[in-house]
């Protein structure tokens, strides 16, 4: 077996028809993707299989079928890969009695670093935790815990960094700092696989996206392509007004309105251009002498967006 080597010509991470299931539940279903240096966003609603995919990449799980390769090697049962790979898990738990310095030093020692203190100091500086480095973790906020986890992951300068929902609990300023940090690592050649269920979180930094829905890879590629796929789909709005029937009849004459359905809780209006309808609704209502009481998107949840991508148009 060859040694894991970040300088190897093999890509940092390759999934080839990878599947994994818990009992009868298929968590990851025949996923093929390659993660190159730079930032790759792993996007999907809760329960999509992102955590399982990251655990497969980190070697904590072995695929039921297919192969995972980290620099050309199978990561499962291969602790040598952790010289180059780090995982930041989603769970917040950390040993509360330790300080961040003690915790990161412990990781640095277990990682076999020669200069434990130097590496720890540098990692804590990277995440701006120097001032809190000697305080017990148990009193930390979510954001500070997240930064402690990041310092522990970055202490050995991994070339493949796997982050599971790293923005959870961070305030906007901390998010910006983390994004800047990840961009800097990516610029240095680190491959970053970053999971999130919020597109806007990772859109600014991820050059490539993998979108997972129900264990499947629903889409992949450049984020602009995915954004277009997400916005060009039909939208459904629930509109309540003083006279739904009259307003609905007028809206049907609008070019982007596909269908109108009257219900007991207002009318459902389906449109191919959400922005255009939003601009036209007020003038149309005014022209019809109808008062609009409420406008509510019915399918704006991420699950609906991702579910749309599972359709033929969204497939990679």
């Amino acid at each position, binding site marked *: 077996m060859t040694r894991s080597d970040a300088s190897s010509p093999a890509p940092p991470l390759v999934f080839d028809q990878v599947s994994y299931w*818990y009992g009868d539940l298929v*968590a990851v279903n025949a996923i093929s993707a390659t993660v190159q240096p730079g930032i790759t966003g792993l996007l*999907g*609603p*809760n*329960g*999509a*299989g*992102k*955590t*399982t995919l990251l*655990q497969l990449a980190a070697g*904590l*799980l072995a695929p039921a079928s297919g192969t995972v390769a980290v620099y050309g090697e199978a990561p499962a*049962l291969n*602790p*040598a890969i*952790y*010289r180059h*790979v*780090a*995982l930041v*898990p*989603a*769970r917040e*738990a950390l*040993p509360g*009695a*330790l300080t961040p310095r003690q*915790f990161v*030093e*412990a*990781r640095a*020692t*277990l*990682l*076999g*670093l*020669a*200069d*434990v203190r*130097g*590496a720890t100091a*540098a*990692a804590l*500086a*990277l995440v701006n935790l120097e001032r809190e480095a000697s305080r017990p973790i148990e009193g930390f906020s979510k954001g500070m815990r997240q930064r402690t986890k990041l310092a*522990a992951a*970055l*202490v*050995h*300068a991994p070339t493949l960094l796997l982050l*599971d*929902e790293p923005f959870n609990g961070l305030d906007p300023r901390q998010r910006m*700092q983390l994004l*800047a*940090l990840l961009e*800097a690592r990516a610029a240095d050649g680190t491959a970053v696989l970053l*999971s999130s*269920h919020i597109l806007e979180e990772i859109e600014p930094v991820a050059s490539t996206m993998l979108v997972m829905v129900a264990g499947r890879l629903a889409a992949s590629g450049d984020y602009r392509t995915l954004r277009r796929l997400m916005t060009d789909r039909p939208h459904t709005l629930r509109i309540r007004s003083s006279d739904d029937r009259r307003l609905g009849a007028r809206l049907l004459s609008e070019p982007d309105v596909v269908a109108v359905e009257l219900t007991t809780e207002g009318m459902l209006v389906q449109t191919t251009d959400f922005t255009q309808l939003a601009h036209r609704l007020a003038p149309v209502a005014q022209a019809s002498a109808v008062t609009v009481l409420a406008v509510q998107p019915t399918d704006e949840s991420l699950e609906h967006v991702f579910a749309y991508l599972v359709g033929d148009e969204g497939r990679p």
Partner: protein
Amino acid sequence: MNVRVPVSRGVPRWGASARVLIRLAWVRTMSPLVLLGTTGLLLLPLLFAVLFAAQGSLSGDPVDFLVRRYDQLVGALATPVLALLLGTSAFSAEREDGTLVYLITTPTPRWWIVTVRLLWAGGLAGALSSLTVWGAGAIAAHGSNPEGVTSAYTVAVFFGGVAYAALFTVLGLRSRRPLVTGLLYVLFWEGALSGTFQALNFLSVRQWMLAVTLPLTTARAERLEGVPSAPFALVAAGVLLLAAIRLGARALDRLPAERSGS
């Protein structure tokens, strides 16, 4: 943000990694329950010894008293329960809250992680058991060591503490309810079954512990009839230790996956 992390990758550092693993185990294990249980188990034999010593010459033969207390209170209760508390705690907190991932996502070999934690739990359980044996002997026999009984049991319970801890450390990694399973094992296998069926003595840590006392003391040797020989006990405990390390390392390779989140 522009600070560069020094990339300095070395080989596994055995001593330093052992210290880290023990330190993490210590801060995660010393819960109020463990401290309370440990203190109670340690004080019980000492309390009996104090009562025995307080009655002076009316108490009877100190050797007979010590052998019975060592067998019943230490060998059958304090040592296995201490080992159960410490052995199952060696990984349980980290396993429950998911922080075990920070140990196993390192190049430190998993067999080494298990070995260190197992020896930490066993050493602590053994040392505390030995301490209570020595203390009870010193009190009841007024500082003497009649027929070598105190020294023999001091060695035997240390040996038993390590063997029990090996068993319970693996149980902590492989069972969902290690405390309950371990207690059932102590009560039924070590207590009821091995006391009833002599053939099971060869598979009983308690009997191995008694076997270790055989060459070290002449006290009440007839009590020890039917137990395995000391060499058998040492070999059996060695096999148990190696099997525990192997099974524990395999358990770390196949931890139940975290399914929370996504």
